[in-house]
């Protein structure tokens, strides 16, 4: 019973995004603009930029992911689609689980994955070495799903609440800090020549833990929000 719900919701979200391609690319545009602000604010000295690059790129990716997550459920709640999706799985928190997972997946495919693909370009702009850029992509590949899962949780918690967007960022960004630390730390480590194995192991562990726990919490939050 859960498989049709998951694939139906995911398929629909992807199809809707395909119809509004410009909207889907806005988070990437934000990422580009935000990243470009740092050389302007800090100065173009290559050594400085190389040093701050892991942190800057990761923080901007985090913010881009958070900004695009606010609208995840709002439209569906307004037109009644969310009710139908929640009903489809039966009643109770477990029923909301396929919806939560599908939404996190669609957010990652539409925002997280593009960030991973676009990041090398900006890594070059900050004069990162090839190995660092590879580490950047790898860390974002593990990290952006975590951001999508946590952002998803925030969106469900703040569903229909006024100033939901800013509130969501206040709530969820502290929870994203470990991912930020391990992710940007991995890139810094590679850039300075040391091993990033510890960072990646921790990031991987975080990915697994978040993947197991966040959807359940999101399902509970969806139930609370639609009671």
């Amino acid at each position, binding site marked *: 019973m859960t498989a049709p719900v998951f694939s139906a919701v995911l398929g629909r979200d992807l199809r809707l995004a395909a119809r509004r391609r410009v909207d889907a690319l806005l988070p990437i545009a934000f990422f580009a603009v935000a990243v470009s602000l740092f050389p302007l604010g800090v100065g173009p000295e290559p050594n400085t930029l190389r040093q701050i690059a892991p942190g800057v790129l990761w923080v901007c990716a985090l913010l881009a992911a958070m900004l695009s997550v606010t609208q995840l459920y709002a439209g569906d709640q307004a037109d009644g689609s969310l009710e139908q999706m929640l009903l489809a799985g039966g009643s109770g928190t477990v029923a909301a689980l396929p919806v939560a997972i599908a939404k996190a997946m669609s957010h990652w495919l539409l925002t997280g994955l593009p960030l991973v693909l676009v990041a090398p370009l900006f890594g070059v702009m900050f004069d990162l070495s090839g190995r660092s850029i590879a580490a950047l992509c790898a860390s974002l590949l593990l990290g952006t799903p975590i951001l999508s899962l946590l952002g998803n949780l925030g969106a469900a918690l703040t569903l229909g609440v006024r100033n939901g967007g800013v509130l969501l960022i206040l709530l969820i960004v502290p929870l994203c800090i470990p991912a930020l630390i*391990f992710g940007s730390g991995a890139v810094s480590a590679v850039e300075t020549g040391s091993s990033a194995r510890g960072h990646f192991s921790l990031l991987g562990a975080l990915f697994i833990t978040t993947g197991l726990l966040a959807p359940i919490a999101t399902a509970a939050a969806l139930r609370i929000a639609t009671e």
Partner: protein
Amino acid sequence: MAETRFFTYASPPRFYALAGKLIPWFWTAAVLLAYAGLYIGFFKAPTDATQGDAYRIIFIHVPAAWMSMVLYLVMAFWAAIGWAFNARLASMVARALAPTGAMFTFVALWSGALWGKPTWGTWWVWDARLTSELILLFLYLGYMALVNAIDDTRRADQAGALLAVIGSVNVPIIYFSVKWWNTLHQGATISATAAPKMVATMLTAMLLMTLACWAYAFAVVFTRTRAIIAERERDAKWLNGGTA
């Protein structure tokens, strides 16, 4: 039965009455304990060999930091109880705890800064403990913002409970990651200021201040809970002079 007596005070009217009687005692205890603790800490405890007199701020910093962390867990606990058992009072207590917890976090932060200034020369340093306290402050503010933003009280309580539980699970993860980050970037030079070796008088002062903080917390949280009860049950007969 013992069970009846325990849950008797789970009803808002009875809690309201009991708390009203206890609050003055808590305040008295808080003031006396704080006076004693601060007197011993600031005047009686010996001067430290390495840090001089500046270390004395720990008698405020450490109890405040400890309270900030414990109160978060207590808040999450009562919020979860309120959610799981639909217990109104538990949810109200959780909401009442948040501002006090946030206040202790804030006190821990600026007392940490005051400690840092004479010791390492700057008002702020990004060491693991202070940074974790800062993130804890954000967690408190997030909780308060969320329960405030949702108009429906039951939904607000439930969403807040979920957030507080998630926060509790995350606090150890965040603390670990911040420690990791700190050791990577700062190295041994700017590490967390270590408390001096604790002599008996210092421990006494610390204990007294901790108890003072607890008494203060009870006094303030009970007062705030009564205010929340009064606000939520304002149409109830028992508040307006009728019987429970």
